[in-house]
């Protein structure tokens, strides 16, 4: 490959921007992959009045931006987007194509992969170029999350993957950046089957987990809803937010909006205290960017201790009560 080519692509998903940062995170990761392959990083942006997103992607490291600013693309539409992007892939033939595992990314990328007759690794937690073989290794949870599978796509192109928001860190905003901007031809579009009549913004949840510096996570080991409520006291003392694992959400102790992990949010706090959680991969994939992890579990062999910087073996509720008491005394 050569520096003039642009063979690593990222799909520019600007829905819910600026909260949704996954495209910026993928640009950063894609750029490092592109450097390893001695090529450039391209971002694909479709929509109407997309100028500010094009500029944001340039500021965050895109080398090339492929854009279609078209009235017919003003709303996310999986059929129209598939038609346009598939035709561009046919023209430019990227080797790697990444998208965020957002609501739209999860709908769009499988359809695009089918159209392109290639594979797709969903909800990847790591992406690497194998130094020996040069293969693009996409690491994704498999078999219900009990295993991590390294997936390669030796024969078909592009090698496609979706990645959970928060898995990678974005590059800082560079207002001096300049990117190449290409407006490839837009093919004849199929008729739109869905017309968006009205958009209604859902009221923002109080939880701002993604930005929290401290996150307290409760699992089924908290034992009861009443015990789980204590986590909010602890979070308040530490100026943090509360998250939860799937079993705690399914038990009805807390709402889905605080779910962390593969099917929920990913967080990267400075401090994460995970209490009464076993450490299933579906959950830990959502906390792997945390700077410091403290785990509390009564089972000393619980997998959560393997990802923790500090482990406390003991009863979850008892430890939480002690922490609240001690912190209240000290702070």
């Amino acid at each position: 490959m050569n520096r003039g080519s642009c063979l690593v692509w990222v799909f520019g998903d600007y829905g819910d921007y600026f909260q949704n940062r996954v495209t910026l995170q993928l640009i950063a990761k894609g750029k490092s992959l592109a450097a390893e392959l001695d090529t450039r990083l391209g971002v694909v942006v479709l929509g109407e009045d997309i100028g500010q997103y094009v500029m944001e992607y340039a500021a965050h490291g895109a080398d090339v931006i492929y854009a279609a600013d078209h009235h017919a693309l003003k709303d996310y539409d999986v059929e129209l987007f598939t038609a346009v992007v598939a035709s561009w892939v046919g023209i430019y033939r990227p080797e790697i194509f990444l998208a965020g595992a957002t609501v739209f990314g999860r709908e769009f990328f499988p359809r695009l992969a089918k159209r392109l007759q290639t594979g797709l690794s969903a909800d990847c937690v790591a992406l690497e170029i194998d130094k020996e073989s040069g293969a693009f290794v996409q690491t994704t949870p498999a078999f219900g999350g009990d295993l991590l599978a390294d997936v390669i796509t030796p024969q078909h192109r592009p090698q496609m993957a979706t990645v959970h928001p928060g898995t990678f860190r974005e590059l800082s905003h560079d207002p001096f950046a300049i990117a190449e901007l290409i407006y490839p031809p837009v093919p004849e579009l199929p008729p739109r089957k869905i017309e968006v009549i009205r958009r209604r913004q859902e009221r923002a949840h109080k939880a701002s987990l993604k930005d929290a510096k401290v996150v307290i996570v409760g699992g089924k080991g908290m034992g009861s809803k009443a015990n789980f409520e204590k986590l909010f006291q602890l979070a308040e003392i530490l100026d943090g937010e509360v998250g939860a694992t799937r079993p705690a959400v399914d038990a009805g102790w807390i709402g889905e909006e605080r779910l962390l992990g593969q099917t929920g949010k990913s967080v990267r706090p400075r401090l994460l205290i995970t209490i009464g959680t076993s450490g299933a991969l579906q959950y830990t994939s959502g906390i792997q960017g945390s700077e410091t992890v403290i785990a509390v579990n009564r089972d000393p062999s619980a997998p959560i201790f393997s990802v923790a910087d500090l482990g406390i073996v003991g009863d979850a509720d008892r430890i939480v009560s002690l922490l609240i008491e001690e912190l209240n005394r000290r702070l």
Partner: protein
Amino acid sequence: MALTQSSVVSAHHNYFINGMLIPGFLIGNPDSTLGFYLLGDFLLPGESTPRISCRFFDENGDFLGELIWNRLRHNSTKCVHKATPYGFHISRPSGDLIIATSTKRFPNGYITSIGGRLYDEKGALKLDHEGSSARLGGNDAMILKAPYQGSLDREMKNE
């Protein structure tokens, strides 16, 4: 199917020209003393007001005036400059629009749209607009990737 168009884009400020974002452009030669030119200067981070310069004529090729860095100069025909909340308008005494700019501010940058009708010294239409995007006549527009360093710069600094 339309043809591929290509340009460059700045992370800070761009003009919306010919349906594309470009950080700066120049058509014609500002160093000539008589001919038409149009300059949308490249802005550096920290600058938020686009700098437009042009020498403009009417549809018969008669000189109307010159705009240097958004200010009307050599305005013998009494063209009118009017500031707006998002840019400015320049019109003939009759009220006919010559050029208008409008800059949209985003959290991390700016995009400037240009409208109006500009003619060169032969009466040929050099700038028109379609929706929010200006259309430049001819294929001689040069994309700027840095601030223009020609005579306009010297003239303004000498004031």
